[in-house]
């Protein structure tokens, strides 16, 4: 922040309205851009399930895939309860099959 506007802040001049506009736009666009149609989210969930099931047995009913929005960030959160690690995985798989913690992506 340049010094004059810092001083203005200090003496209580309100934020320039164009900056308010810009900040509000940034936030709303972050939400807009991260909006995923329900059908796409469902398809993503199904495909995740297929991929993960190659390595671990998953509690399909409890699998959750959601978009989480908080001030400033948007994240895809998946909660994948694992019932059992498969032991019949080919050794050239990219992932470490030992890991049995619920994955948080």
């Amino acid at each position, binding site marked *: 922040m340049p010094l004059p506007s810092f001083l203005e802040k200090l003496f209580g001049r309100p934020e320039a309205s164009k900056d308010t506009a810009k900040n509000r*736009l940034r936030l709303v666009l972050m939400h807009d*851009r991260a909006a995923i149609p329900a059908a796409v989210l469902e398809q993503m969930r199904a495909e995740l399930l297929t991929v993960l099931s190659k390595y671990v047995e998953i509690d399909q009913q409890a699998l959750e895939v959601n978009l989480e929005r908080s001030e400033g960030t948007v994240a895809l959160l998946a909660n994948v309860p694992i019932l059992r690690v498969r032991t019949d995985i080919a050794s050239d798989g990219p992932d470490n099959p030992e890991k049995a913690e619920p994955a948080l992506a």
Partner: protein
Amino acid sequence: MSNGRVIVITSGKGGVGKTTTTANLGMALAAMGEKVALIDADIGLRNLDLILGLENRIVYDIVDVVEGRCKLRQALIKDKRMPNLVLLPAAQTRDKSAVNPDQMRQLIADLQEDGYVYILIDCPAGIEQGFRNATAGATEAIIVTNPEVSAVRDADRIVGLLEAADLRNPRLVVNRLRPHLVKNETMMSVEDVQEILSIPLLGIVPDDEAIINSSNRGEPVILQEGTRAGQAYRNVARRIKGEDVPLMDLEEGGFFSRLRRLFAGAR
């Protein structure tokens, strides 16, 4: 397929100046000697004819052509001021479903066959079927926005939808910029808008009272020498043709604008 240019002018939000932009860019390109066809794809809310001052010369419209009631050439209105420019008017009493994407592509192919090198499509506001029809045959897109929250938000949505329609490199025209409001930090600057949308800038058109006069009379502002908006549109047209034209000096009291006014005479 010819090597012509098919450019859709779109915005999402209504009232940002799509039709005025289409009219002026079409005329400016024609004035530079290009063969230009303008398509009014805003079926049911026809206005490009009015902005161009051609409303009294409409006999057939785009729906008449696709439904076979006339030949394409019969529906094209030649602009007497600008021999290289024709308008294919929208239908006023039909809705957005009256022309489908395949028909739009066929119309464009036929216009190219007839030698029109620049085809500009005035897209309806919104993101529904009318938008999909208008963008169907286009290979380039220009997004018109105003430095204002709702217009910028809608423009961002349009960027995403154009991408989904395989129109990947839209360029931005920031319309109705008010330099003195930008200067006192009331209005977002072009840099602010660009930072948010992150698409390449094609031009800036200042808010200009001359536009009101020109709409009233049906004489696009590029026909008036010495208007700032007219100059801005001429610059945009030259950039569309690939020329490297610097952004004009929009500062009200700037040296160049004072100089320009001196030469253009008092308005």
